C-alpha cells in the first residue's frame, strides 16, 4: 500500500502535462537571442535554415534584413522567400512582412527577423511580436531574432548602462513563452573588431549613439544580461522537465512577490525592479494598487497612469489586482497572506524632516507590522523628481473665485448678526457664530471655502469683537490663545464638513450610476426579442458614454451590424475586421488595443453563459473614466445575458413551430389514411361480399351493396379532387379564369349537384332578379358552393338549407345557411383552416377538413372575400358569406 501511495504521489503533475499538450497544438517559437546588433543572429538563423532545407523541411523566409551583407545574402539562395507587402509611412514607401501571405502559404517553419520591430500604422498589429503570436496560434513554427536590450524589463537597466533610451520593446512574456532560445554569442572585443571592419550594419544617422553604445563596458554588460537570461530559461526548462517527469525536486524557490504600486512616477521603477527580482528568484509576482473606498479614485490622469502600469506589469508577466480598503498596511498584509506572498516590494518617497516627524511612511509602517514577510523597498534615484509630481492639485481659478465669494459671504453674515446681537445682549461666545459661518462655507463651498472662511473669521472676529476694537492687535493675552484655538477648531471642523460634503457628492454620483444601471437592467429584463435588447443597449450606451456605439451579431455564419446609435453610423473594412477578430478570438480589438489599433472603434466581446453572443464597438474619443468603464462592463454583461436569453427564447419558438408542423403533418396523414381507407374498406367489403355470398343475399341487399360501392367511389374521388385542389392552392399554381359569370347559373348547377348526392335534403334558393355579373372562374365558384352545401348537409341536421344571392353596395353577396348546431365564436375563424373539423375530437368527422379551406383559397384567388357567422338564425345554424366585387358593365362587349 505504501508503495502505491508513493507512486500516486509521483505521478506527473497534470497541469504541467496539460500545458505541454496545449503547447503541442500551437506552433513553436524559436528566438535567436543576441547581446547586441552584429553578433550574427540572422546569419545563424539562415545557416540553420539552410541545413533543415537540405533535409527537406518546409521552411520559408518571411522577412530577413541582410543589410547588404553578401555572406548573409548568400545564405538566402535556395530558400523560399515570401514577397513583402508595401506600405507608405510618412511619405516613404516601406516594405513590410506580409502576415496574410505567410498564413496563406502555411509553411511548417517561417523565419521573421527582428522580433522587436514596430509595424507602421494601418497594419493589423502594431508590433511584430503580435504578428508572430498569430502565426504561432495558427500552428506555424516561427524563428525570430532579438537583441537583449529590447526586453521590456531590462529597458531602464539598459538605459542606465548605455545611456541610450530603447524605444522598441518586447514584453518579457514573449521570450518566456518561447519554446527554444538560442544564444548567439560573440565576445565584445570580436564584435568591436567586426564593427571596425564595417561588418555590422547600422543606420548612418545613429553614428554618435553607436560610438556610445559599442563600448567594451556596455557590450560586456549586455552580454552578461543575455547570458543570464538564457541561463534563467535553462533553469525554467529544467523545472518544467522535473515537473513533467515527476522527479522530486527542490524546484522553484517558492517565493511569491507582492508589489504595491500607486500613481506616482516611482511605481514604474518599482514594477521593473520587481520584474527583475521575480525573474531572478524564478518567482510568480502580483502587482496591486489600493484605493480608498470613500474617495472617488483620484483624477483621470492618475487612474490612467495606474492602468498603464498594470499593462506594463502584465507584459512583464505579473498578475494584477485592484484592492479597495482604507488601511493600506492592513490591506497589503491581508492580501499577502491570502496570496501566500513571501516578499513585499514597495517604493518609498524622499520625505522632508517635518513629514518624517509627523507620520510614518507606508514602507516603514509596513516593515513594522509585517511579520514573516520580506519587505523590499525601492528608492528613487538621487535626481529623480519623484516628489515634484505629487503637488497638490492647483484649484482652478473659477472654483477659487467661487470659494472666496462663499467664504466672504458667510463671514460677513456672521459678523453682521454678531454686531446686532452684541448691541442687544452681551454675548461672551460670539466666536461660535463664526464657527457656524465656517461650517456653512465648507458645506456649500468645499474645503477651499472652509479654509478661507476660517482665516477670514479669525481676522473679522479679532477686528470686530476683540479689544481694542477695530484693530488687529489684541490686548488681553488669553484672547490671543482663544483666537488660535478658534482658528484650529475652525480649520478642523471645516475640513470635516467639506469631507462630508465630498462623500455625499460621491455617494450621490454612485447612486445615480446605480440607478441608471438598475433602470437599464429593468428595461432589459422586459425585452424578450434580440432586436429590442440590442437597440436598448446601444441607445443607453450612447446616452451614457456620449459616443458612437455599434453592436454586431453573428448571423448566418458572419458577423454583421445589428444596431448602431446614432443609427446612421457606418463601419469601414478595418472596423469590421477588428470586430471579427474580437468575435473569433474573444478579446478586445480595434482602437487602443494590440489588434488593428487604427480602427475608430474599440470592440469588446459580449460573453454570455453559452459563449460569445455578439460584439460591441465603442467609438474612441478620450479614455473612459473608471465610473464609465464600470458602467460599460456591467451594461455589456447584462446585454450578453439578455441576448443569450433572447436567443434561447427564439430557439424555443422555432422548436414549437417545428413541433406544430409535425403535429400538422400527423393530422394530415391520419386524415388522408382515414378518408381513403373507409371508402376503400366499404368497397372491398361490399365487392367480396357480393362475390362470395351474393347468391345467398336478397335482391334488395345486393342492390344496396352495389349502391354503396357507387357512393363510396364518389366519396373517394371527391376527396382526391379536394386534395389536388388544396395542393394547387398551396403551390400557388391556381390561376382562376377571369370570365363573366352569371351567379344564378352557378348556384343552380351547384345545388343540382348536391341534390344528386344528398337526395333527401331540402335546399332553397333565393336569388335577386337583377343580379349583376361578376368576373371569375365559374368552375371554381361552383366547387366552392358545392363544398359549402356539402358542409351544410353534413352539419345542418335535418333542417332546410338556404342559398341566397343579392347585391350589396359594390359587392355581390352569396350566402349559404344551415340550421344545425352552429359554430362557437372562437372556432369561427379556425373553420377555414386546413384539416380543422367540427365534430369528433379523434379526427374522425365525416368530412375531410379541407372543404372550407379550399373554399377560402378559391374565393380569395378570384378576388373575393369569405367569412362565417354563427348562430345564423334563431340561435341556430351557420352562415357562410362570400362577397365578390361587381364587375364594371362598361367593359362588357355586347354580342
Amino acid at each position, binding site marked *: 500500500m505504501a508503495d502505491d501511495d508513493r507512486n500516486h504521489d509521483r505521478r506527473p503533475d497534470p497541469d504541467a502535462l496539460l500545458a505541454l499538450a496545449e503547447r503541442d497544438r500551437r506552433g513553436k517559437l524559436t528566438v535567436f537571442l543576441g547581446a547586441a546588433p552584429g553578433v550574427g543572429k540572422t546569419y545563424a538563423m539562415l545557416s540553420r535554415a539552410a541545413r533543415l532545407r537540405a533535409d527537406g523541411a518546409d521552411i520559408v523566409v518571411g522577412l530577413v534584413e541582410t543589410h547588404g551583407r553578401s555572406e548573409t545574402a548568400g545564405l538566402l539562395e535556395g530558400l523560399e522567400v515570401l514577397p513583402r507587402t508595401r506600405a507608405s509611412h510618412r511619405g516613404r514607401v516601406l516594405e513590410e512582412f506580409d502576415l496574410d501571405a505567410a498564413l496563406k502559404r502555411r509553411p511548417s517553419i517561417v523565419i521573421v527577423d527582428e522580433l522587436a520591430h514596430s509595424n507602421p500604422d494601418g497594419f493589423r498589429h502594431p508590433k511584430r511580436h503580435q504578428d508572430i503570436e498569430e502565426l504561432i496560434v495558427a500552428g506555424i513554427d516561427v524563428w525570430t531574432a532579438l537583441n537583449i536590450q529590447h526586453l521590456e524589463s531590462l529597458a531602464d537597466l539598459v538605459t542606465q548602462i548605455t545611456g541610450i533610451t530603447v524605444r522598441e520593446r518586447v514584453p518579457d512574456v514573449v521570450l518566456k513563452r518561447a519554446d527554444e532560445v538560442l544564444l548567439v554569442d560573440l565576445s565584445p572585443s570580436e564584435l568591436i573588431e567586426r564593427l571596425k571592419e564595417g561588418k555590422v550594419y547600422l543606420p548612418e544617422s545613429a553614428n554618435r549613439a553607436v560610438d556610445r553604445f559599442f563600448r567594451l563596458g556596455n557590450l560586456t554588460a549586455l552580454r552578461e544580461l543575455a547570458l543570464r537570461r538564457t541561463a534563467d530559461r535553462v533553469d525554467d526548462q529544467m523545472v518544467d522537465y522535473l515537473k513533467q517527469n515527476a522527479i522530486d525536486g527542490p524546484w522553484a524557490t517558492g517565493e511569491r512577490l507582492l508589489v504595491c504600486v500607486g500613481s506616482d512616477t516611482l511605481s514604474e521603477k518599482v514594477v521593473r525592479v520587481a520584474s527583475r527580482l521575480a525573474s531572478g528568484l524564478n518567482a510568480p509576482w502580483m502587482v496591486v494598487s489600493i484605493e480608498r473606498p470613500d474617495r472617488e479614485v483620484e483624477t483621470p490622469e492618475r487612474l490612467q497612469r495606474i492602468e498603464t502600469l498594470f499593462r506594463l506589469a502584465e507584459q512583464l508577466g505579473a498578475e494584477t489586482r485592484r484592492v479597495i480598503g482604507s488601511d493600506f498596511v492592513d490591506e497589503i498584509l491581508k492580501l499577502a497572506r491570502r496570496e501566500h506572498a513571501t516578499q513585499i516590494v514597495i517604493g518609498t518617497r524622499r520625505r522632508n524632516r517635518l513629514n518624517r516627524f509627523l507620520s510614518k511612511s507606508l514602507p516603514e509602517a509596513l516593515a513594522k507590522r509585517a511579520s514573516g514577510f520580506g519587505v523590499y523597498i525601492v528608492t528613487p534615484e538621487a535626481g529623480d523628481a519623484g516628489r515634484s509630481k505629487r503637488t497638490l492639485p492647483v484649484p482652478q481659478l473659477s472654483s477659487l473665485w467661487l470659494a472666496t465669494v462663499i467664504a466672504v459671504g458667510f463671514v460677513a453674515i456672521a459678523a453682521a448678526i454678531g454686531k446686532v446681537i452684541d448691541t442687544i445682549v452681551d454675548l461672551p461666545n460670539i466666536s461660535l457664530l463664526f464657527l457656524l459661518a465656517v461650517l456653512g462655507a465648507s458645506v456649500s463651498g468645499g474645503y477651499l471655502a472652509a479654509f478661507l472662511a476660517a482665516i477670514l473669521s479669525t481676522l473679522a472676529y479679532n477686528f470686530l469683537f476683540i479689544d481694542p476694537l477695530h484693530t488687529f492687535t489684541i490686548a488681553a493675552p488669553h484672547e490671543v490663545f482663544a483666537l488660535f484655538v478658534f482658528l484650529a477648531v475652525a480649520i478642523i471642523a471645516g475640513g470635516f464638513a467639506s469631507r462630508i460634503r465630498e462623500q455625499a457628492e460621491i455617494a450621490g454620483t454612485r447612486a445615480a450610476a446605480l440607478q441608471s444601471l438598475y433602470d437599464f437592467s429593468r428595461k432589459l429584463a422586459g425585452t424578450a426579442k434580440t432586436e429590442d435588447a440590442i437597440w436598448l443597449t446601444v441607445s443607453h450606451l450612447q446616452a451614457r458614454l456620449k459616443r458612437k456605439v455599434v453592436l454586431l451579431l453573428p448571423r448566418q455564419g458572419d458577423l454583421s451590424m445589428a444596431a448602431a446609435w446614432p443609427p446612421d453610423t457606418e463601419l469601414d473594412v478595418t472596423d469590421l475586421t477588428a470586430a471579427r477578430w474580437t468575435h473569433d478570438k474573444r478579446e478586445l480589438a480595434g482602437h487602443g488595443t494590440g489588434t488593428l489599433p487604427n480602427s475608430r472603434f474599440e470592440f469588446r466581446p459580449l460573453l454570455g453563459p453559452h459563449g460569445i453572443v455578439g460584439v460591441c464597438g465603442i467609438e474612441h474619443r478620450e479614455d473612459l473614466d473608471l465610473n464609465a468603464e464600470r458602467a460599460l462592463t456591467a451594461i455589456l454583461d447584462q446585454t450578453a445575458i439578455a441576448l443569450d436569453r433572447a436567443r434561447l427564447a427564439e430557439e424555443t419558438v422555432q422548436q414549437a413551430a417545428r413541433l406544430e408542423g409535425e403535429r400538422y403533418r400527423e393530422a394530415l396523414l391520419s386524415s388522408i389514411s382515414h378518408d381513403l381507407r373507409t371508402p376503400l374498406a366499404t368497397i372491398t*367489403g361490399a365487392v367480396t361480399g357480393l362475390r362470395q355470398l351474393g347468391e345467398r*343475399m336478397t335482391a334488395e341487399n345486393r342492390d344496396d351493396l352495389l349502391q354503396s360501392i357507387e357512393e363510396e367511389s364518389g366519396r373517394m374521388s371527391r376527396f382526391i379532387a379536394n386534395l389536388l385542389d388544396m395542393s394547387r392552392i398551396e403551390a400557388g399554381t391556381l390561376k382562376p379564369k377571369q370570365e363573366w359569370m352569371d351567379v344564378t347559373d352557378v348556384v343552380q348547377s351547384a345545388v343540382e349537384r348536391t341534390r344528386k348526392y344528398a337526395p333527401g335534403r331540402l335546399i332553397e334558393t333565393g336569388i335577386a332578379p337583377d343580379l349583376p355579373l361578376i368576373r371569375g372562374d365559374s368552375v371554381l365558384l361552383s366547387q366552392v358552393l358545392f363544398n359549402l352545401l356539402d358542409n351544410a348537409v353534413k352539419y345542418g341536421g335535418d333542417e332546410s338549407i338556404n342559398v341566397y344571392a343579392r347585391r350589396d353596395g359594390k359587392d355581390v353577396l352569396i350566402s349559404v345557411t344551415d340550421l344545425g348546431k352552429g359554430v362557437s365564436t372562437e372556432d369561427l375563424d379556425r373553420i377555414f383552416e386546413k384539416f380543422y373539423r367540427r365534430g369528433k375530437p379523434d379526427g374522425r368527422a365525416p368530412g375531410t377538413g379541407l372543404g372550407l379551406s379550399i373554399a377560402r383559397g378559391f374565393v380569395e384567388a378570384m378576388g373575393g372575400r369569405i367569412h362565417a357567422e354563427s348562430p345564423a338564425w334563431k340561435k341556430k345554424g351557420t352562415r357562410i358569406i362570400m362577397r365578390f366585387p361587381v364587375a364594371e358593365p362598361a367593359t362588357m362587349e355586347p354580342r
Partner: protein
Amino acid sequence: MTVSRILVVDDEPQIQRFLKPALTAAGYEVIEALTGAEALKAVATQAPDLVILDLGLPDMDGKDVIASLRGWSEVPIVILSARDRESEKIAALDLGADDYVEKPFGIGELTARIRNALRHRGRRDAIPEIMEVDGLTIDPIKRLVSRDGDTVHLTPKEYDLLLLLTRHTGRVVTHRTLLTTVWGPAHSDDLHYLRVFIGQLRQKIERDPTQPRILRTEPGAGYRMAERD
C-alpha cells in the same frame, strides 16, 4: 346447430351497411352498435357469440371497450384495425382480443377469422387433444411431437412455445404473450429470444423452414399456428 349471433361495433354507417347483409348471407345473426357504450350494453343484454370491434370509436377508445368486456365476459373479440395503428392492434391483442383483421379486408378473410374464433370459444386454455397439421403430430398428454411418424426432439422451451401456439391454433399469439408465458414477465421485451427459438422450431418441424406452413409470422404482432388442414 344454432345460429351464431355477432355484434358489429363500428361508427361508420358505410361499414355497417355492407357487413350486415354479408354476414347475414354467411349465416350469422347481426346486431349493430355504433358506440362503445352501446357495445357494452349489447354484450350484457343480448349475449352475442362474437364481437367485431372497430378500434376507433367516437365515445371511447376501443381498447377500453376490450378491457371492460374482459372484466366479465369471455366472448371472442375480433378487432378491425388499420395498418397505421399497429401498436393499438397489439395492445388490443394483449388486452384479450382474440384476433384482428386489417382494413380493407375481404369478406372471406373476416368469416374465416369469425369461424376460427367461434370454434375455440369457451376453451381458451383447455388442454387440446392430439393435433395434426401438415404432417406434424403434437400429443400434449404424452408430450410427444412427431413428423411423419418420426419423433422430433425438442428442448423444453421449444416444446412450451409450440404447445402455447397449439392451444391457440388459428389465432394470433402476441410476442408479449409468448415471451411472458414461456420465459417469464421479466423477458417481455426480449424479442430476439423468440426469433431464435421460432427459427429452431421451424428447422425441426417445418418441411421447408424457409417457407413455413405451420408457424406463420404475423408481422409486428406475433405468431399464429396454422389451422388443421
